C-alpha cells in the first residue's frame, strides 16, 4: 500500500475551511484513543477536557485571558510565515516585552497617572520589536539562519528574566517568593467590563490586531508584497519588492505583537513580573497560526481552541485525574493533523493498494 499525490489544478476553497475542522476531529479521535490507553473513559475525558469549561463563567474568562496572548502572537507570526521568515523566537520576544514594559512599575513605582499604563504597553511592544530585530539584522547582514538565532535568543531572554526577577528586580518584601513588587492599580491592565467580563483588555488588543492585519493582508499592497515574497522571492524582486525590508517588517511586527502580549499578560493576568510568565505561549502560538491557516480571522478562532486545551488540561487534572501534560500532547496532535490535512487542499490524495495497480494507474 502506498499513497500517491496529484497536484490539484486549482486550490480548493471549500477544503481550506474543512481541513482545520477535520484536523480537530482527528485530534479528538486520537485524544480519545490516548485516554483509552491511559485507562480512562474516552468520551467522558474529552467532555471534561474540552466541553465542561465552556459552561462555567470563571473558565470562560480564563479562556479569554489565555486566548489573548495566543492570538496576538500568532497573528504576528502569520505575517512572518506567509513571507517565509521563520521567526520561532516569539517566546523570547514575549519575555523581553514583559521586561521592558515592567521598567516603569519597577523604577517609578509611585508614579500615578493615567499615562502609566499606555506607556507600559508601548514600551512592551517596542521591547519585543527591538529584540526581534536581532535575528532580522543577523539574517539580512550576515545571512544567518533565523530559525536557530531566534530560538537561541529565546533561551537568553528567559535566563535574563530569571536573573532580573531573582536578583536586582526582586521584591525585598517578597518572603521567599521571586518576582517584582505587585503592580499598583494604575499599572494593571483593567478588565474589559468590571465584574461581568473579568478578562483583561488583552483580548480586545488581540482581536483588533487580527482585524487590522487581516485588512492589511487582504486589501493593501503591503499584504500582497508579503504573499508574493513568500511564494517566490525571485518574482517579488521582479515586482520591485525588497526581500530584505520584508525580513525587517515581518520580524518587527511579530516582535511588537509578542512584546505587547507579554506586558499585557504580566500587567493584566499576573500582576507582577516573575521568573515564569508563560506556559509556552510563544511556541503554542505557532500551532495557533497554522490551525488558523495563517489567516488572521482564522487565528482568532484557533486561538480560542488552543486556549481551551490549556483550561481543559487544568480541569482534567482535577476531574479525571490525568496529568496536565495531556495539554501539550493534545496540542502536538493538533499541529500534526493540521499539517497533514492541509495536503488535501493542494493535492488529490490517492491510496494505492498494490504495486500492480500503481503501474496501471500511472498510465491512465
Amino acid at each position: 500500500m502506498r499513497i500517491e499525490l496529484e497536484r490539484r489544478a486549482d486550490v480548493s476553497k471549500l477544503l481550506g475551511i474543512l481541513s482545520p475542522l477535520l484536523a480537530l476531529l482527528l485530534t479528538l479521535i486520537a485524544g480519545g484513543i490516548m485516554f483509552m490507553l491511559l485507562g480512562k473513559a474516552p468520551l467522558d475525558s474529552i467532555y471534561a477536557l474540552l466541553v465542561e469549561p465552556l459552561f462555567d463563567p470563571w473558565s470562560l474568562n480564563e479562556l479569554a485571558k489565555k486566548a489573548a496572548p495566543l492570538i496576538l502572537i500568532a497573528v504576528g507570526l502569520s505575517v512572518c510565515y506567509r513571507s517565509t521568515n521563520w521567526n520561532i523566537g516569539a517566546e523570547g520576544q514575549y519575555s523581553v516585552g514583559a521586561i521592558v514594559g515592567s521598567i516603569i512599575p519597577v523604577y517609578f513605582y509611585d508614579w500615578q497617572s493615567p499615562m502609566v499604563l499606555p506607556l507600559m504597553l508601548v514600551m512592551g511592544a517596542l521591547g519585543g520589536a527591538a529584540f526581534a530585530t536581532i535575528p532580522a539584522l543577523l539574517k539580512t547582514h550576515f545571512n544567518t539562519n533565523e530559525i536557530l538565532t531566534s530560538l537561541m535568543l529565546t533561551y537568553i531572554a528567559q535566563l535574563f528574566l530569571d536573573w532580573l526577577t531573582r536578583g536586582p528586580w526582586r521584591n525585598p518584601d517578597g518572603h521567599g517568593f521571586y518576582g517584582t513588587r505587585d503592580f499598583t492599580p494604575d499599572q494593571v491592565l483593567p478588565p474589559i467590563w468590571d465584574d461581568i467580563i473579568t478578562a483583561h483588555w488583552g483580548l480586545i488588543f488581540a482581536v483588533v490586531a487580527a482585524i487590522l492585519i487581516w485588512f492589511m493582508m487582504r486589501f493593501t499592497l503591503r499584504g500582497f508584497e508579503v504573499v508574493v515574497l513568500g511564494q517566490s522571492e525571485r518574482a517579488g524582486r521582479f515586482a520591485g519588492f525588497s526581500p530584505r525590508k520584508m525580513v525587517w517588517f515581518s520580524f518587527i511586527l511579530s516582535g511588537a505583537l509578542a512584546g505587547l502580549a507579554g506586558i499585557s499578560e504580566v500587567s493584566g493576568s499576573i500582576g507582577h513580573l516573575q521568573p515564569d510568565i508563560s506556559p509556552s505561549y510563544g511556541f503554542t502560538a505557532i500551532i495557533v497560526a497554522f490551525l488558523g491557516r495563517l489567516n488572521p480571522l482564522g487565528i482568532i478562532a484557533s486561538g480560542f481552541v488552543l486556549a481551551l486545551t490549556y483550561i481543559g488540561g487544568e480541569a482534567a487534572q482535577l476531574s479525571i485525574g490525568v496529568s496536565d501534560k495531556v495539554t501539550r500532547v493534545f496540542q502536538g496532535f493538533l499541529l500534526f493533523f493540521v499539517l497533514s490535512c492541509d495536503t488535501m487542499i493542494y493535492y488529490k490524495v490517492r491510496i494505492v493498494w498494490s504495486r500492480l495497480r500503481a503501474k496501471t494507474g500511472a498510465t491512465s
Partner: protein
Amino acid sequence: MTFFEAVLLTIITASTPLVIAAIGELVTERAGVLNLGVEGMVIIGSVSAFAAAQLSGSAYIGLLAGVAGGALFSLLFSFLTLTLVANQVATGLALTIMGLGASGMIGESYVSVPGIRLLPIEIPLLSQIPYIGTVLFKQDIVFYLSILLVVAVNWFLFRSRAGLKLRAIGDSHSSAHALGIGVIRTRYLAVMFGGACAGLAGAQLSLIYTPQWTENMSGGRGWIALALVVFASWRPWRILAGGYLFGAVTILQLHAQAFGIGVPAQFLSMLPYAATVVVLIIISQNRRMTLINTPASLGKSFVPDR
C-alpha cells in the same frame, strides 16, 4: 585522577550527545531533508531509554530502546513531510512540541526515581597510557560509538556509492529521480538514521550524563545540534570539532559557576546559546562557502511527476 583529567572527562560526556545528534541530522540534511524536530527526538530517546532501563534493569536495553524510540518517532516526521509533503519547518516544530509533551507525560512516574547508569568499559593496556589513558580509553560505549559514527558517516557519504546517491538526492531530487534513484525511500532511511542518532544522544543524557529523568532534560541540545550541522558546513569531521567546542563551553561555564567568579549563574548559562549565535554569524558570513556546501534541495518537498 587529576582535576585536569576530570574536567576533560566531563567535557567529553557533555560533547558526546551533541556530536551524535548532529551527525545524524547531518545525514538527514545531506539527503535534502531539514528536520527541526531533533530536540523532540532527543527527549523521546531520553525517556524511552530511562523507562526501558527501569523496566528491564539493564542500561544496555535502555540504550537500545532510546535508539528505537528516536527512530520510530522520526517516522511521524517522514510520513508527514515525505509522503504527505507537509512543510518541513512546521512539521519539525510539531515533532519538537509533541516530543516534549509526550515525554513529560510518559516520564511523569519516573521523576526523582534513581536512574541506572551505563558503566564505562575499560580497554586493557590502552587505558594505562598516562594522561590520556583514562580520558579516552575508560569511557562508556556511547563515546566509542560517537567516534565510530563520525568515521563511518564520513566514509559512507564520500567513499560509498550509496552515499553518493544520497548526496545527489540532497542536491537535486528531480535529477536523482530521473536517474532512477528512489528519492522518497532514501529520504525515509536518512530521516530514520537521524532519529536513531538523536535517540541515542537522548539515551546518553538519561543513562550517562545525568542518570535520572527530569522534564525537558534535553535543554536545547537538539537545537544546538542543528546549529552544529550549519557550523560544520555539512562535513562530518567538523561536527567533532564543533561538538567538543560546545561541550567545553557548557562544562567550563558550569565550573565557573561552581567557583563563583562574580558573574550571575544565569549569564554563564547563557554562554552555550550565545556561543551558538556567534558561531552561526561567523560561519554564515562566508556566503560562498555556505552556498557550495549546503545541499541545494534542503527543505524542499518532492512530489514525483507521474
